[in-house]
């Protein structure tokens, strides 16, 4: 059987199975039987999609040119690792990756026993219908198993892969990002199921929580990896450009962050349910929008690929159908969820409402900034840019208020149990953060942005310390009390500490960035913050499928040679494209970042651009901690109303995802 036919059959089997999973899960019939059939069908979807994915990967490994997709996106000379990762470095293949993760979450929902059987049955049905819709879209418009046209001449070799994408960052960035995007599908399915049943309470919250936290952690890492890839591969000396596609990944993250705090309120207080339901639908809707944005050509971006308006239109319709349908259901059923209960403004839940408000406003701001140029161009034909300055002005004050709200939220207990006790420590934290921020800013001669960044970071740090202090009680009880804290609490501590580091790192690497540009002849030297950079000369080296033009740069400090680096420009003959490979010399917690380019008119001269990014490694570490906290909490035992070691131990295997 041909490669193309076998792959197509696998996808069709998956389509059939997803149809069964959807029908059996949604139909109103015997719960146990419906659940069993839907679960088995979800398993079948997973197995067949996984097989299809491996089949495509094998075709890429062998550069099997009988597949049109392989012909278009691969080349026999490509390094083997990039042949494998090339499987998802194109529209069709990445859609198959998306499907595989969607099916994976379907399988996890079916076999981990989250939620009551009735809720789970319905949720599996929704998840099955999502898989059905995406499989149909893949088979009809974007099949990676499309054969190479029979009437075309025999191809000598493939067309190659965009060199920018031949990079370790690409190997892990999309799968991680998709784990996050698609993980939110499980949250969506449980929420729609709960809305149908008119019951969105603790059971829903406990079913959703591990999926949400896991997806959120993966999304955090995915966004971080994207920033890291942009930092060292694009060679622009920055890590975040407020590019539409970056924003598209940030929007579901913001919604998911708000949601995971909101779920806590539902779990603990049985309140805020309608809001939570709306956020859950919105979070997955934002993921779909992200998928649509990258592929539609509606926004221009470095990350956009396969700009195809007709496919984009289908994806847009799917986005609108799933998001709009969810919100419509919410509008019809949301009222039933409202529960009038006492709600203290000065309480943990009050702080979480504030958190949700601020995250939603930030989400709205990013949404507005991303789509405003498109809206304006359609309405008036004027082309404008909404660039980083807009987002910085809007986001920085919000981040500062968020940090203040976070410190407050950590100090104050639930309900009205903690009146007044939070005030003295909060005063100390706010005062210390402001004084500390001012001192640091004056010491390092920063701008007003530096005050905001330092203050936000310190407020969060102060909140964490205050929280642990409160929980520890006194020195004598500290060890015993803190060690008995549940894993999910430590997850929160780790994530919040990561946030504090992230804010500190961003402040250092952006506000205190130093940048120089110089045109140097061989032997000439330029300076950046006490480091002397000498352009020593250039050379050419052959890589596996590229030529590398290396520029030797010697880095000296006080006359002493501390590093010899070789930033380069690569030329990929197959794709007829070049990339800039920057050189990084780590200095403490920061980087000296050097990129070179050919200076016009003169072959000997080089334009040397150098940046110093202080504390940038603190920023990367912060991202890792934020995600790690999410994973810790995702895999921690669920919150039991009466906690005993035996009970939480018995729940542990069930809580594993």
């Amino acid at each position, binding site marked *: 059987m041909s490669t193309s036919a076998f792959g197509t059959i696998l996808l069709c089997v998956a389509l059939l199975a997803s149809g069964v999973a959807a029908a059996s899960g949604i139909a109103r019939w015997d719960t146990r039987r419906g659940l069993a059939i839907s679960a088995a069908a979800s398993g079948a979807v997973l197995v067949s999609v996984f097989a299809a994915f491996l089949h495509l990967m094998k075709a890429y490994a062998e550069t099997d040119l009988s597949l049109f997709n392989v012909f278009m996106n691969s080349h026999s000379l490509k390094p083997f690792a990039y042949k494998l990762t090339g499987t998802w470095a194109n529209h069709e293949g990445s859609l198959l990756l998306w499907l595989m993760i969607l099916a994976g979450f379907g399988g996890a929902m079916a076999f981990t026993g989250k939620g009551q059987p009735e809720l789970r049955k319905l949720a599996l049905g929704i998840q099955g219908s999502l898989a059905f819709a995406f499989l149909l879209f893949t088979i009809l418009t974007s099949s990676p198993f499309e054969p190479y046209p029979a009437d075309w001449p025999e191809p000598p070799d493939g067309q190659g892969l965009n060199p920018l994408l031949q990079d370790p960052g690409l190997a892990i960035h999309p799968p991680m990002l998709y784990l996050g995007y698609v993980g939110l599908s499980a949250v969506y399915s449980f929420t729609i199921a709960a809305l149908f049943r008119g019951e969105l309470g603790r059971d829903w919250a406990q079913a959703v929580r591990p999926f949400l936290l896991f997806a959120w952690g993966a999304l955090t890492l995915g966004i971080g990896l994207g920033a890291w890839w942009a930092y060292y591969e694009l060679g622009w*000396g920055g890590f975040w450009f407020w590019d539409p596609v970056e924003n598209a990944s940030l929007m579901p993250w913001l919604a998911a962050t708000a949601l995971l705090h909101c779920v806590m309120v539902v779990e603990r207080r049985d309140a805020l349910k309608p809001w939570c339901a709306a956020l859950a639908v919105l979070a997955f809707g934002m993921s779909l929008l992200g998928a649509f944005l990258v592929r539609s050509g509606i926004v221009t971006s470095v990350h956009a690929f396969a700009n195809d308006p007709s496919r984009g239109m289908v994806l847009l319709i799917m986005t609108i159908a799933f998001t709009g349908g969810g919100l419509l259901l919410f509008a019809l059923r949301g009222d039933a969820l409202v529960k*009038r209960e*006492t709600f203290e403004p000065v309480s943990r839940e009050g702080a979480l409402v504030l958190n949700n408000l601020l995250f939603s406003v930030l989400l709205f701001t990013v949404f507005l900034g991303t789509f405003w140029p498109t809206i304006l161009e359609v309405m008036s034909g004027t082309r404008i840019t909404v660039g980083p300055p807009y987002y910085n002005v809007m986001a920085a004050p919000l981040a500062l208020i968020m940090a203040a709200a976070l410190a407050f939220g950590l100090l104050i207990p639930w309900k009205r149990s903690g009146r007044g006790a939070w005030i003295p420590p909060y005063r100390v934290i706010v005062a210390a953060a402001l004084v500390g921020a001012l001192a640091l800013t004056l010491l390092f001669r920063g701008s007003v942005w530096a005050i905001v960044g330092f203050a936000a970071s310190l407020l969060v740090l102060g909140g964490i310390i205050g929280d642990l202090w409160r929980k520890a009680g006194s020195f004598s009880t500290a060890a015993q009390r803190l060690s008995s804290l549940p894993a999910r609490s430590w997850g929160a501590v780790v994530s919040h500490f990561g946030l504090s580091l992230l804010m500190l790192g961003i402040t250092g690497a952006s506000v205190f960035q130093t940048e120089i540009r110089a045109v140097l002849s061989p032997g000439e030297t330029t300076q950046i913050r006490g480091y002397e950079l000498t352009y020593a000369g250039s050379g050419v080296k052959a890589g596996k499928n590229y030529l590398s033009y290396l520029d030797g740069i010697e880095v000296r400090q006080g006359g002493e040679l501390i590093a010899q680096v070789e930033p380069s420009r690569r030329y990929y003959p197959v794709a007829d494209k070049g990339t800039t490979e920057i050189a990084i010399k780590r200095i403490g917690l920061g980087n000296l970042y050097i990129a070179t380019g050919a200076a016009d008119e003169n072959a000997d001269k080089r*334009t040397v651009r150098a940046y110093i990014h202080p504390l940038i490694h603190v920023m990367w570490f912060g991202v890792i901690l934020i995600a790690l906290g999410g994973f810790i909490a995702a895999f921690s035992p669920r919150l039991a109303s009466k906690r005993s070691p035996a009970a939480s131990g018995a729940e542990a295997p069930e809580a594993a995802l």
Partner: protein
Amino acid sequence: MIFAALLFFAASLTPEQQARADEVYETLRCVACQNQSIAESEAEIAQVMRSMVDNRIAAGDTDEQARQFVVTHYGEYVLLTPSVSPKNYLLWIGPVTALAFGGFWAFSLFRRDAKSSE
């Protein structure tokens, strides 16, 4: 190319002027790039745009005049910060309005519950 080459050999700036020019670079988008300022880009067009700024600064323009000179050539698209003009009011006011409405909603949540708890 000739146009570009001519501009390259144009202005030479004093350090103070160069510092001002650097700040103007940061606010202008390289038309061939993605959300990248002309300060960050080595694209040819970015070099041309930089020398346009240099020339205007050398000729005695204020920062704003130099920026406007580039805008008249390439359109409002090059401004990284969208202008505060009637067509962009919604963009600028939107987030603040959302915060106000959201704050009002949150407040009503508490108010209502405060009453029901009495």
